């Protein structure tokens, strides 16, 4: 109500709309505030860009500490409140979903674009004009990038590894990039379905983290890994060759009905009988299981009743059946796909053809914990498991995030088979070509496109700055080299100079660059179009 009255008093003096000057102060203020907030977010992650980018330590509300270099993770944990700043956080999430890598780049580009937009706005250009020009410029930019890109064959393992290591090089685990990059490439390639060669479902790659060892011990397992130990409460087997594996969704424990039930015991002789019946019941089940030749049981977790009891474990151990219990329901699909078997929901349906076969199932001690490995699976589905090791939880988590980025990079290459140079080369080339293009455009558009071109220089500038080089000198030289037609010249952060970046094996997928540009532009356009923030229910 207060706001309504205030607005009305403001409205009263201008009686007729056609004659009075329209006061736009508030809208300007809102826009400025939005841009400033969004830029603050962009500045926060700017220093983590590039191979010499720094990491951030985030201590979350519940006392957990995260050290990361991943833009999406940093922003995600930042808990920003300002709506426009939130949009930048969402932007990095979108990039994560679309390309998986370049989550910092996209935010940095958006921040630079906003900075230029602020200049344009103060020059009195209408936001929608800026927005339309940005859209045009970004479409053009994608064309330029596509023209720069180098086609790639999936059989070219070397190039795939190169681009995966470019992504890994900016992370904490960069010293392990020689190990992790081929691992990422192999695991993605092993899940590509020949029927649908453009599609990779990253859910087919399971990442299991286990504390202990170093990142060096990370390995790709052709098979399954359970971060659990086999149940050997009653001394059951922990190693099984020629395993016949059953995935069961029922429980091996005394019967329980959905209706509430109670057993009435009227005299003590009955007690004995009940105990005996229970034993027989379980024994009956286990006999049926044994009859099919099954020797490894994976039991789905149940909330209604105990999946196994001590008694049933005892009998299972006697029957020489290895038991892994508490398998999550969500994992069942992955497991059945890998083992090429079917889940069994009832003891009556326990048949030999539903079992999966593997050469070896064994429990392995790792550090202070134990895991169960299933290897040599017969007719294995197109899935892969990666076992990540590390000396502490922080490293493992960061290794997982980095590996995820590397997997995404490879996935991008599978779906869109083009590579582009890294090291700021595409951005500076874009900036040059768009700058030239802006000269042939008319009116405001040309002016806005030029600003867009200038904004893109932020990527090489930041790369140089983070590497401790003189950004102005580097960017100027880079511009110079590109003007002479060396379109692949980029910043070589290791050597601290400008070289042909393609020869240095710094490459990234085209999809990452194009989606960073289009997403950043879309987000900036959205922020520009906002002229008011309204509090609602």
């Amino acid at each position, binding site marked *: 109500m207060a706001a309504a009255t205030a607005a009305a008093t403001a*409205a009263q003096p201008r009686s007729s709309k056609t004659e009075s000057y329209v006061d736009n102060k508030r809208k300007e203020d809102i826009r400025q505030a939005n841009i400033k907030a969004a830029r603050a977010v962009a500045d926060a992650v700017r220093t983590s860009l590039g191979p010499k980018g720094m990491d951030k330590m985030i201590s979350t509300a519940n006392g957990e500490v995260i050290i990361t270099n991943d833009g999406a993770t940093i922003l995600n944990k930042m808990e920003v409140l300002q709506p426009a700043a939130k949009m930048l956080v969402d932007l990095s999430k979108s990039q994560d979903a*679309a390309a998986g890598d370049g989550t910092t780049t996209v935010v940095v580009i958006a921040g630079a674009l906003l900075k230029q937009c602020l200049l344009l706005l103060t020059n009195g250009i209408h936001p929608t004009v800026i927005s339309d020009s940005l859209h045009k410029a970004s479409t053009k930019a994608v064309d330029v990038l596509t023209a720069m890109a180098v086609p790639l064959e999936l059989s070219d393992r070397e190039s795939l590894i190169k681009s995966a290591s470019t992504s890994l090089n900016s992370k904490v685990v960069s010293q392990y990039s020689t190990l992790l990059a081929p691992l990422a490439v192999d695991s993605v390639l092993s899940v590509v379905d020949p029927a649908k060669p453009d599609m990779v479902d990253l859910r087919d790659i399971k990442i299991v983290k286990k504390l202990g060892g170093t990142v060096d011990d990370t390995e790709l397992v052709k098979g399954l890994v359970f971060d659990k130990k086999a149940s050997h409460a009653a001394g059951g087997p922990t190693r099984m060759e020629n395993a016949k594996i059953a995935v069961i969704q029922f429980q091996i424990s005394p019967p329980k*009905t959905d209706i509430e039930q109670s057993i009435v015991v009227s005299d003590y002789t009955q007690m004995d009988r009940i105990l005996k019946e229970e034993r027989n019941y379980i024994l009956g089940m286990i006999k049926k299981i044994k009859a099919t030749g099954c020797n490894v049981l994976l039991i789905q977790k149940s909330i209604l009743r105990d999946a196994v009891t001590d008694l049933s474990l005892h009998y299972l151990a006697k029957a020489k059946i290895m038991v892994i219990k508490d398998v999550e329901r969500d994992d069942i699909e992955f497991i059945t796909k890998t083992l090429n078997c079917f889940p069994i929901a009832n003891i009556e349906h326990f048949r030999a053809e539903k079992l999966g076969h593997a050469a070896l199932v064994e429990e392995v001690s790792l550090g202070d914990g134990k895991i169960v490995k299933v290897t040599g699976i017969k007719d294995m589905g197109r899935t892969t498991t990666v076992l990540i090791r590390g000396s502490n939880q922080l490293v493992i988590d960061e290794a997982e995030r980095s590996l995820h980025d590397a997997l995404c990079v490879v996935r991008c290459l599978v779906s869109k088979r083009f590579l582009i140079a890294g090291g700021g080369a595409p951005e500076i080339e874009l900036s040059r070509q768009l700058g030239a293009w802006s000269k042939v455009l008319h009116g405001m558009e040309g002016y806005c496109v030029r600003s867009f071109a200038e904004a893109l220089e932020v990527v090489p500038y930041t790369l140089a700055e983070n590497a401790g080089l003189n950004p102005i000198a580097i960017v100027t030289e880079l511009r110079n080299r590109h003007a002479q037609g060396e379109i692949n010249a980029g910043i070589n952060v290791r050597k601290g100079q400008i070289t042909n970046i393609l020869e240095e094996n710094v490459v990234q997928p085209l999809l990452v660059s194009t989606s960073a540009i289009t997403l950043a532009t879309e987000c900036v356009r959205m922020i520009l179009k906002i002229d008011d923030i309204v509090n609602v229910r």
Partner: protein
Amino acid sequence: MAIERILKDDASEEKGERARMASFVGAIAITDLVKTTLGPKGMDKILQSTGRGQEVTVTNDGATILKSLHIDNPAAKVLIDISKVQDDEVGDGTTSVVVLAGELLREAEKLVAAKIHPMTIISGYRIAAECARNALLQRVVDNKENAEKFKSDLMKIAKTTLSSKILSQDKEHFAQLAVDAVMRLKGSTNLEAIQIIKKPGGSLKDSFLDEGFILDKKIGLGQPKRIENAKILVANTAMDTDKVKIYGARVRVDSMSKVAEIEGAEKEKMREKVQKIIAHGINCFVNRQLIYNFPEELFADAGVLAIEHADFDGIERLALVTGGEIASTFDNPESVKLGHCKLIEEIMIGEDKLIHFSGVEMGQACTIVLRGASHHMLDEAERSLHDALCVLSQTVNDTRVVLGGGWPEMVMAKAVDELARQTPGKKSHAIEAFSRSLVAIPTIIADNAGLDSADLVAQLRAEHHKEGCNAGIDVISGSVGDMAELGISESFKVKQAVLLSATEAAEMILRVDEIITCAPRKREDRM
């Protein structure tokens, strides 16, 4: 002697001048809030929720903004209501209607200040609205007979509607999508058959129209992933044991084997139910509730594709488009209507697997899959597309089309102006005011685009002095242009609804001379 209190404690009463002022102030404030969203260069608003999660919505849609506002002013609430009604009735023009009503009130305020009785203003407005409508009716174009032209009309309308939204950059693409979808409906306004699925990722251009129906669910384990000539049973039934629903029902047994028997019986019941369902001769079973592991396995054994936990909206729509009925008992297979479709298969959009039903019974059905950078984007795109679909489906029924870009307002204003000159008496002031309010719309469109509105509107008025002129504001070039050439059209039905409901709302607020606020209901403090 002082009059005793008539009203309850916290209730308040405002009378005469004060009451009228309060309603004017409220209505005008609302108008000012949404008016910057009008037109192709209108701006967006951030709606920041104060509730849990502090969610942020970015929108340009008048109805969405107004719907979510905190409002304590009765007159402002009336405006919000008309925008809601406009949204339900025709789907578009939700901002226009509020702005017009607000402008009418702004003019009325001045007239009241000039000591003209509200009733006189009301009757003047009424005459003016009638006259404006007739003027517009004379200029409508109806291409009902010519299918080719009508389709291009639809395209134009869709583009005009979309040009003020987030989709403006890809309006060609989306206009085509919307027109195709609406043409499939073959005249029905049942937008239920058009399903919109939002999937983050990709860009807006990757959005596409798909015939058939897409369900955002997974196929059960070990079941066929592709079925041709599917017979679908849509159900809403609990797949676990039918529990005895009497409180405290329990079974007493005296031995373990009996418990096992009961469990066996329960399983048997489930099996029977599954058997009954399979006996319908189906090969696809969609349930709204969970299907547990056990029945899932049974279905898999029978080669039936079972989909569990489909949301309510999903199964109702699925039943609609496949021509089936939602069943909950399975004793009489004859009486259950099964749904049919040619092909069910699993498809992948972005990262997610979805189930695609193609060749469905109801040919009208189709799905629009929206792709976009973020959730904000997708939500806003959905709202925009919804507006376009509504307008198009209305236009298919009422094929009359008018030009856009402030053209209808100018035509109406001209006719109303002439009427004012012919009308004797005080009413003529009101009629004149009505014409001024109409002109306010092109003025605001120009203002929002950062153009010199005073100059443009004057030019426009001069152009409209000629007979049969098509001039309107061309926001892109910032001048007066020929709307017919630029292909900017609007549905007559929308314009008419804007005109009539805005007038009615203004009239209603004008009539008010006393506001009684009832005492708020006391809330018990819960300890």
